[in-house]
């Protein structure tokens, strides 16, 4: 490989822009870089020899996914091409037949009663014979058969690369359609798709969750006004109406809204109005947020050239985006709703979990175990950080998950085991025992129960 690596390195240095190797973030990037791929593959399959500029490249699985999508596309284009061939053949056949008939028709029309060289009957027999020859020569079967073969190949390729049957993972959970419809409707309210939600309620004949709809409509109207029309009025009204609750929950969103309004006035109208705004609306916040107000007063000096002032970041339009997100968060917090859409979170968790469950399903059908009667999944599903809502402690000795009956216990050395493991090690609380990790002695009395 050494010689090749040298050549390869030279090729890369001369021809590839550095960012091409660093910023591969999608399957399509990979597969459009055919030449790059061609050189890289042999190297990447021997990780120990890969030069350091490729260590930013990650799993082979992604490379393969890109290539596989490519393979599917190629196969499809093959099918489309074959179809063109087959279809043009049939069209030709049809045209030939048409032409012959039209020719015969023309000659019959021109036929003269006195023309005794050839009778109409004979013309027709001639036509029939010609058509028979065309028919027998057409051989439409072959392209059609080849097309069918290509159809089957494409399907096989799809089944090979993609999981052909997700239903394998489905236990007969008998989901209640009413609950699901409610969940979906609430999801639509959350996304602001009110007419879709209403349509669903009608078609599924569900009862409407009116209060929820009203709530989400309120916040969507507020945010809409803010985002699309830069109108902070509804937001400010809501914030002042809920001032007490906001204060209790420790939110300073009213101040933030006023600040944004101030900057808006400063940028779009005049200094006098901006100053007036501070006096009327920001005065109540003077005692608690003096520093902020002082900053605002300072920015007045740069009226007209805010983007060249030390306060340039105040004018950044991203604040509108951030504030509308914070508004949504605060609103949900106040009304006891989760901020992240539970349906999206669950489906996203499902996407991460399905590959594992598919493997489990195929293994279990082999063992004929009852997939449907499990109390706990026999394999772990590694979800991302954003799905971790609860602390889970797994005892390093017994690999059991802790529970109320079997809580985690802190040993004097700082290591943590579950209660049952400690019982076993100490022979039912009678002896001192050694921590499995560091050989420090411990007695049961010294262990403290932990609460995560």
């Amino acid at each position, binding site marked *: 490989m050494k010689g090749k690596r040298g050549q390869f390195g030279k090729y890369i240095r001369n021809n590839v822009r550095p960012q091409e190797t660093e910023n591969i973030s999608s399957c399509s990037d990979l597969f459009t870089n055919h030449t790059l791929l*061609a050189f890289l593959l042999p190297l990447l399959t021997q990780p120990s020899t890969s030069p350091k500029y490729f260590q930013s490249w990650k799993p082979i699985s992604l490379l393969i*996914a890109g290539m596989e999508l490519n393979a599917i596309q190629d196969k499809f284009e093959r099918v489309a091409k074959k*179809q063109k061939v087959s279809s043009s053949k049939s069209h030709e056949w*049809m045209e030939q037949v*048409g032409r012959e008939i039209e020719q015969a028709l023309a000659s019959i029309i021109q036929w003269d009663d006195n023309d005794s060289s050839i009778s109409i009957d004979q013309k027709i027999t001639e036509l029939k014979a010609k*058509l028979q020859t065309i028919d027998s020569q057409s051989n439409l079967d072959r392209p059609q058969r080849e097309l069918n073969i290509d159809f089957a190949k494409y399907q096989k390729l799809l089944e090979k690369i993609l999981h052909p049957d997700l*239903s394998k993972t489905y236990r007969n959970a008998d989901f209640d359609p009413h609950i699901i419809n409610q969940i979906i409707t609430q999801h639509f309210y959350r996304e602001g798709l009110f007419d879709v939600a209403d349509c669903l309620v009608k078609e599924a004949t569900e009862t409407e969750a009116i209060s929820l709809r009203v709530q989400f409509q309120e916040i969507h109207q507020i945010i809409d006004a803010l985002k699309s029309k830069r109108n902070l009025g509804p937001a400010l009204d809501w914030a002042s109406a809920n001032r007490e609750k906001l204060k209790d929950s420790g939110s300073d969103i009213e101040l933030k809204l006023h600040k944004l309004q101030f900057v808006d006035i400063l940028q779009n109208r005049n200094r006098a109005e901006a100053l007036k705004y501070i006096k009327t609306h920001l005065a109540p916040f003077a005692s608690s947020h003096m520093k902020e107000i002082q900053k605002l007063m300072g920015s007045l000096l740069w009226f007209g050239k805010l983007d060249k002032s030390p306060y340039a970041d105040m004018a950044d339009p991203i604040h509108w985006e951030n504030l509308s997100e914070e508004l949504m968060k605060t609103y949900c917090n106040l009304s006891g709703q989760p901020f992240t859409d539970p349906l999206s979170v669950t489906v996203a968790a499902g996407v991460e979990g399905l590959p594992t469950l598919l493997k489990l399903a195929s293994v279990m059908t082999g063992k004929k175990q009852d997939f449907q009667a499990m*109390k706990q999944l026999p394999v772990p599903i590694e979800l991302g950080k954003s799905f971790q809502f609860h602390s889970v402690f797994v005892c390093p000795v017994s690999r059991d998950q802790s529970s109320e009956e079997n809580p985690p216990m802190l040993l004097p050395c700082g290591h943590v085991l579950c209660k049952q493991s400690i019982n076993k090690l100490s022979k039912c609380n009678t002896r001192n025992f050694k921590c499995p990790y560091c050989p420090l002695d411990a007695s049961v009395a010294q262990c403290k129960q932990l609460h995560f």
Partner: protein
Amino acid sequence: MSSTPMEMDAQLPTATATATATPIAAPPPSNLAKLAESLKLEHQFLRVPFEHYKKTIRYNHRTIEKEVSAVISGVPAAASDISREEAVRQLTSLVSRLQGLKRKLEEGSQTEQLQAQRCRTRLEHLESAEVDNLPKWNSIRLKRILVDYMLRMSYYDTAVKLAESSNIQDLVDIDVFLEAKKVIEALEQKEVAPALAWCADNKSRLKKTKSKFEFQLRLQEFIELVRTENSMQAISYARKYLAPWGATHMKELQRVMATLAFRSNTECSTYKVLFEERQWDYLVDQFKQEFYKLYGMTLEPLLHIYLQAGLCALKTPYCYKNACTNEDPLSQEGFRKLAMPLPFSKQHHSKLVCYISKELMDCDNPPLVLPNGYVYSTRALQEMAKQNNGKISCPRTGLVCEYKDVVKAFIS
């Protein structure tokens, strides 16, 4: 970049061979790898438009074959001593028939093109998934899953509205389901004709899968005849349509034939059930299953499959406690109910979440234990101590102590 596709074909096969032969030990999957895995779940997404495309191609081909053959055999027989006017008339009609066929084929070919394009569009959509645009791509995936659910539940208007809201009409199968709509609505009106037509259209495929759906339709029609006490008609119907199925489904045939001896208000349970209205609902369900199988769709709505997987993956005993955070979907009543019969998730490694900051407590942010056994993350306690002169108070029990009183815990 000057590129010459050098030796690519020669290198690729060996490369893939070695790639599969040397599996790389998996570190926690990166976002990219997870994305690649998630694309592999999209079989239905690509298969359905392909089936539809195949169907159109076959239908167009059959049309040409039938029509042109008919035209060829429509040429008047020889030696019929035909007059000139007659010959002209007949040949002209054949010519116009061919012209009609041409027009029909143009339409058919356009449909074919559109469907081929749809297959391509979907492949491009899968390609377009990137780590950067993931939130948007995921939100479109959720919409696709929801449209699939709506279509299967026959909420057609909602499906159309939802697809329009994000312009994803090419990524969903509304037109395929409209074909099913006709059959389903007819069956709900106790009409079997569209269903039988559908069976005739898909005869070869249904035969391949040894489907007995057509048989069940015929049985139901027979029962309806028995219900109206048209015994003679029922028997001749059975002779014509049920007998051919006798070879493979004799037992069932006999059971249904026996209903002739009973009336529709019979109390005998074996036969009473056959007369119930519910049988029509079973027919609708049966049709749906056949339909899904034909098009390569999953037999359960995608939403059910993803929801179930997600609920299992998220389900822990802590989710059902009152202290469960709002952000966990399983804190919501609907989700809790759905997850009741499902198994709990399993963890092989401890994963600890700080009660205060909701951050993970790992080696970067190790857990600290207060004198009362309550545990919080280092970062959260340090922040608290900074703001309170070195004092920390447990948010759950109210205990106040000094930062230096906490003990480090070592979790592997």
